């Protein structure tokens, strides 16, 4: 087990064969490129062209409920996007939702990975149990939390509280989980789904530690905490970064949980849900596109940082 983002030692390959200018070299380079082209062209056509279209539509006045009144709108849609309080709120919601879910899942995932790294009876069974939440289809998981766990009348959470109350003889509180704390309810369900993901990545990281170094350290008298602080944690750092990055990519786009648990109500509408709403229910194509462009610009800023992280992992490993 090892982090493998290392470039294979073939860097000089293409240069040696493809001398620019020479006909044979050019042909050789195209032979090399040929297997790549279908995937590359497909990706550009299906993922990049729509963004260009979004850019164009964002400058138009276009509501499909009012098709005759279509025309050039300049930056009006952007003004509307930035002055729309619902959309501004959804930006904050997206940031809070993503940050809390990713950080809490990482911390819990780290704890669970450290536990699973110990030797104990039934470790495989516990690992399987911990993975289960990630394998429930997101919509199904959201329905499960909404109806079977959070429901104030017959959900498992209030049911368990009631059962404890009866057992110990006190009046159990019966909170309305979703309406009392809507965003927290969404966050808990997502943390439940994403913690196993983080745990799996971090556990793989833990198990790829060079054990001889760890053993040498404990022979030299390093305590468990010191081993963690100076050996395990530095080794895990890149796995933490990888988990955080991939988790952010997926959670920032979350639609299923928000759509299912709260239907975007009670201040839980994140950007994907808000844009879906503008386009699907308000039918304001221009404004939905402008919001989309804003999201893309925001993502590019974040992605630049994220890609730099991945890229540095890539280089560190290459140097090893």
């Amino acid at each position, binding site marked *: 087990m090892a982090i493998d983002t290392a470039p294979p030692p073939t860097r000089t390959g293409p240069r040696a064969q493809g001398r620019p200018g020479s006909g044979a070299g050019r042909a050789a380079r195209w032979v090399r490129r040929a297997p790549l082209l279908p995937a590359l062209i497909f990706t550009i056509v299906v993922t990049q062209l729509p963004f260009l279209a979004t850019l164009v539509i964002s400058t138009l006045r276009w509501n499909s409920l009012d098709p005759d009144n279509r025309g050039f709108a300049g930056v009006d849609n952007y003004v509307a996007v930035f002055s729309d309080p619902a959309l501004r709120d959804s930006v904050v919601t997206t940031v809070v939702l993503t940050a809390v879910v990713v950080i809490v899942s990482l911390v819990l995932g780290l704890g669970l990975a450290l536990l699973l790294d110990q030797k104990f009876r039934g470790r495989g069974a516990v690992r399987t149990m911990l993975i289960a939440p990630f394998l429930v289809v997101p919509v199904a998981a959201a329905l499960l939390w909404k109806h079977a766990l959070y429901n104030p009348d017959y959900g498992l959470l209030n049911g368990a509280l009631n059962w404890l109350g009866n057992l110990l003889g006190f009046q159990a509180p019966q909170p309305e989980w979703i309406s009392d704390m809507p965003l927290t309810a969404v966050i808990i369900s997502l943390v439940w789904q994403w913690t196993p*993901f983080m745990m799996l990545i971090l556990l793989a990281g833990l198990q790829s530690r060079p054990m001889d170094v760890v053993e040498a350290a404990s022979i030299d008298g390093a305590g468990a905490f010191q081993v963690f602080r100076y050996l395990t944690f530095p080794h895990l750092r890149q796995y933490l970064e990888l988990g955080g990055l991939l988790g952010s990519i997926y959670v920032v786009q979350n639609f299923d949980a928000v759509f299912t648990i709260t239907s975007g109500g009670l201040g839980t509408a994140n950007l994907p849900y808000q844009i879906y709403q503008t386009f699907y229910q308000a039918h304001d194509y221009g404004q939905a596109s402008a919001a989309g462009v804003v999201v893309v610009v925001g993502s590019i800023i974040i992605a630049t940082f994220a890609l730099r992280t991945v890229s540095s992992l890539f280089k560190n490993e290459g140097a090893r």
Partner: protein
Amino acid sequence: MSTATAARSTRVDKPRKAWRPWGLVAWICGLIFVAPVLWMVLTSLHSEPDAATNPPSLGAPLTFDGYAEFFSGTGGAGPWPPLINSFSASIGSTVLVLLLAIPAAYALSIKPVEKWTDVLFFFLSTKMMPVVAALLPIYLVAQYSGMLDNISFLTVLYTSMNLPIAVWLMRSFLAEVPKEILEAAAIDGAGLFTILRRVVAPVAMPGIAATALICFIFSWNELLFARVLTGVVAGTAPVYLTGFVTSQGLFLAKVCAAATVVSLPVLIAGFAAQDKLVQGLSLGAVK
């Protein structure tokens, strides 16, 4: 924290025994995380009145009524068309992804093109674009080309959604092919197909399995595109599930049966191939 001598003296039988209590903690954590899943399955096997009691009736008699109710599709269309749609979109897009990604990964690892790292990062960067921003133009294309509510259109979209992940994954596996063996085979006069079959394929097979598993799971789970682009004909299983978003009287057992049935393919595939799951989720960074 122990002194050096203490650590030395315990070295012989290793400090494993001291960790015993952690096993118990791990079991408790595992049970907490799996509890909602077990509750989902248990509730799906209860009758509707038993499913909706407070406090919960754990020992109520088991019945398949919830499943019967779900598959009979009372009060609307049945679940079979959406399940079949989900299977065809997920399997179709997984096959397409592999057909596109494997040659691309070959050109990024075994015989790399110039600037192959840039190409690789281009693929990853498309994954960071929020799909919701491309939703409208894609919807318009579907509308004008008459592809709305068409499962092949969804299949193509899922292919584009998973292709970057697949390229990364397959590249990381193909990069493992030992260069020396490739060269030795070429010197011995082995043709391209022999090299692919004898040298590359054995290393690539686990990678193909991990890629296929991940692509299948992500396509099967997808909701946003399916919700916007499909209707009565091509609706997928997650779209069918959104029909349960609002409460409809006593329907807890039926909801749980629905959630269980739709999750079952992913649960089976994921449990069966846990190590492949880790490789796939980490884009091949973890082997």
